[in-house]
């Protein structure tokens, strides 16, 4: 870990005023790991844990506004979430461990970075960590990495669970800039695809911008599912995950985790829900570029969608 300066702030305004050139630290469960391994070496840390933004409020239209600092455990245990957005509670509880969820925050979770093994070894080439050094995953081990939305520069997957649920819920990320200007980013656009230019932008945030909250529209109704497939029963990242909201008439929303640099969804796939798993997967994986190691993810995702549809059917009858 390199030497850094540390400031603790007590409001969003103070965070923004101090944010230039700094990294915000929330739960620290991702950032501090990266600092210890020198995957990132920020010179300044601004600790936002006491900056408020930790409430879950009901909005005027009947949705929810989740403060950036709401802990993952608290969010998953909130009665309004369990009643109206069970897919979100299930996705959060499928991730990490109890201890980590107690620390991890809503904003930090959204901003968690890839679990590509090459990103984690600073001696090996990785465009995401060291722009221009190359992507070791291209002809290396890519079993856990993305099969779609990748580029020649990067095969990283987004490893998160919570964001996949947020995707089917049409969440909106609220951010504030250093000048105090606020804006909103739909979850579908929050995570960036690597594309063909360096450095690779991962998030639709500008320098110094702070996430203040995530908002949810009113509860969508329907039956909610989060199915995560992994190499062990707990405490492992998804090989593939499926978040779905399925309505009584067979329509719904679906998104995949573990297969792309962002939660992966499309209108065409949602429109195909009544046609079954194969049709949904065909729509989702249109243009996929799997590697030899991870091509199985397409079949696995198709099968997992089928499992969810079967469960949905059972729930209806």
């Amino acid at each position, binding site marked *: *870990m390199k030497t850094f300066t540390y400031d603790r702030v007590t409001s969003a305004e103070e965070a923004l005023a101090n944010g230039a050139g700094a990294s915000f630290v929330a739960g620290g469960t991702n950032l501090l790991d990266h600092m210890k*391994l020198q995957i990132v070496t920020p010179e300044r840390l601004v600790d936002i844990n006491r900056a408020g933004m930790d409430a879950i409020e009901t909005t005027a239209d009947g949705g929810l506004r989740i403060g950036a600092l709401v802990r993952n455990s608290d969010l998953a245990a909130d009665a309004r979430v369990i009643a109206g957005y069970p897919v979100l509670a299930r996705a959060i509880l499928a991730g990490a461990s109890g201890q980590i969820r107690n620390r991890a925050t809503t904003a930090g979770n959204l901003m968690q970075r890839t679990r590509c*093994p090459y990103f984690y070894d600073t001696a*090996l080439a990785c465009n995401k960590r060291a722009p221009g050094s190359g992507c070791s995953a291209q002809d290396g081990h890519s079993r856990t990495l993305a099969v779609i939305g990748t580029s020649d520069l990067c095969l990283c997957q987004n490893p998160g669970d919570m964001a996949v649920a947020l995707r089917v819920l049409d969440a909106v990320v609220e951010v504030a800039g250093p000048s105090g200007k606020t804006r909103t980013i739909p979850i579908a656009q929050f995570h960036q695809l690597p594309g063909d230019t360096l450095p690779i932008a991962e998030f639709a945030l500008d320098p110094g911008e702070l996430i203040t909250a995530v908002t949810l529209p009113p509860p969508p109704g329907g039956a909610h599912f989060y199915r995560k*497939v992994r190499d062990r029963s707990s405490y*492992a990242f998804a090989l593939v995950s499926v978040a779905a909201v399925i309505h009584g008439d067979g329509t719904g929303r679906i998104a995949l985790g573990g297969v792309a640099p962002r939660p992966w969804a499309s209108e065409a796939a949602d429109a195909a829900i009544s046609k079954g798993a194969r049709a949904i997967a065909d729509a989702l994986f249109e243009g996929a570029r799997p590697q030899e190691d991870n091509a*199985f993810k397409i079949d696995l995702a198709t*099968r997992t969608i089928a499992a969810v549809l*079967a469960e949905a059917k059972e729930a209806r009858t």
Partner: protein
Amino acid sequence: MKFDAPIGDTPIDNGRVVGRPHSRVEGPLKVTGRATYAAEWHEDLPAMLYGAIVPATIAKGTVKAVDPQAARQSPGVVEVLTFEDIDIHGTSSGRTVKMVGGPEVQHYHQALGIVIAETFEQARAAAALVHFEYEVGAGSFSLDGGRADAKVCGAYGGPGETRLGDFEAAFEAGEVRFDAEYRTGAHSPAMIEPFASIAQWQGDDLMLWTSNQMIAGTRGSMASMLRLDEERVRIFSPYVGGGFGAKLWANADAILAAIAAKKVGRPVKVVMPRGLIFNNTINRPETIQRLRIAARADGTIEAFGHEGWSGNVKGGNPESTVMASRSVYAGPNRLMADHMAHLDLPEGNAVRAPGDAVGSIAVEIAMDEMAEKLGLDPIEFRVINDSQVDPSKPEKTFTNRHLVRCLRDGAERFGWGDRMAPGTRRDGKWLIGMGVATAYRAALRHASGAAVRLETNGRITVETDMTDIGTGSYTILAQTAGEMLGVSVDRVDVRLGDSRFPVSAGSGGQWGASSSTSGLYVACVNLRRSIAERLSMDAERVEFEGGEVRSGNRVCSLLDAVAGGPVEAEGKFDFAQSDTKAFGTFGAHFVEVGVDAYTGEVRVRRMLAVCSAGRILNPVSARSQVIGAMTWGVGAALSEKLEVDERYGCFLNHDLALYEVPVHADIPHQDVVFLDDLDPHGNPMKAHGVGELGLCGVGGAIANAVYNATGTRLRKVPMMVEDIIPHLPEPV
């Protein structure tokens, strides 16, 4: 004591203390944080500095230039030592590669130096600033690539190839023949407590707090690497948070702490970060195994062939997958051979149940496949081919082989009769299957010494350099002394892991429990004699019970014996090799799995191990050893595998997020049954170990259960979802 004939009745047979389920005597210290582990002695060492290992970031090649300048100028840095400043004589005994490489680099993350600083963070930050310029060499990193040039090679002084009868002819002539190849993945020992050492010098005397399984060997090895007399070195390792073979010797942390502390004249602590453990130290290499079995139609094996291939650094040992095959199943015509390819990956060495842990996976799948070919129940096929003599050395008879009882008893308890045809049992989305496997592990013995003292307050002190690596040594030694001297466990103080104490067998190869208690048994026999003498009693006819010593109708208190001061005795267990007896531990593993019919995820539903290993010294700690070992088997079968990146020559998944050991949720239900048996032939405790037995065969039983669930036979472990889903029915 030279043990060379079966022993008769002893005080241990009273079973008042030994064999009873005592929880760990040091348990309260451990759960309240008062058991001091190697890295935790700072309170005693206020002047301590921190060392950070500087690893190589290539797998093979030469360091052309070293630039320590930036590191030297980094805040808090006291000293930077690279290989150019470090002089180590030879290497650690038991290891093949050098503990500090350079200029030649032998493997990825080999230590090339150390940075010493005032704080841990400063040391680590500066370590990243030491710059090496490399000339990268061409290495071999693929077992498939190296296999063609692999040579027959024995492990740890054992034979490379053994034959009996005419294997090839008998195999060719076999009525029913089976020939298949299997693969097992490379494993990291992945113990919880990382390698850690603190070194302090007083003049020419080195004090080393470290985490270690074998104190005496490590002491000798440290002395030799530092060119010191052994007497100058003291090793202290009272608590060890798991070793699994990787702490059988001094590792880079120990030698670098010693060298650094000498150089700076202050104590230095070196803890190996998790990210270095996988490539810096040792691993269980990947294996390829060929099994050829020929049998008569009635199931009698005529020919048994097992050949293994693994890779290791030059001069290293192969992973001896065929070792157990020499002793398990009958068959007059036999071929067993290990082959080693020279690879430039990190060193392969003795990880828990070396050889057998993965050898048994291939053998037990092959036995399942062969049973099916023969139309036999897998248990019957194993029973038919049981052998009371060592099949490869028929002149040797097993002293305590109850494999058939383990299999039959387990079948009954597990409900083996409910097993259905492959791919036919379903519970909702789950495909359900059962599998069985034999467990076998040699019962090795090692000479072991101990001292025991009756203190003036009537308490008993036991001292030996034996280690407790989480296994329960403290407890079974306290029980042994308690039984022999007629006191309860809470009146015994056991002190371990100190090189000033008598040399013990150490912890390894599942010999620790039986050998170390046997050494203490001998010391206690001697102490009983001294106590009897003090009390003017006939040593042959005394009884120790309830804090009293009785002879005839004379009764004394133990305290009467120490009126003139403590009484102390030493003793050592030693033995003569036998030409006619074979020692082994046996068991049977039963597993039920569910395979998700959609996703191919395999989840273990229940497990049973029935074990026969002589006297069980403490059923609680023995069970704990076996369930831990079974859990290792689940890892080997379903998730654990070091991924080799053949371009960089490294194990890529070098942390516990990417190298996945089982978690609690993977292990729903485990039963362990011990047969109530005694083996008077091996040692005076009539006991053998179970810590590795519990692992042997488990992966095979799981693979067989996956076959029974799905109808798909996989010949590689770990079995991942992508191996399974292509064989599952299309979901509707």
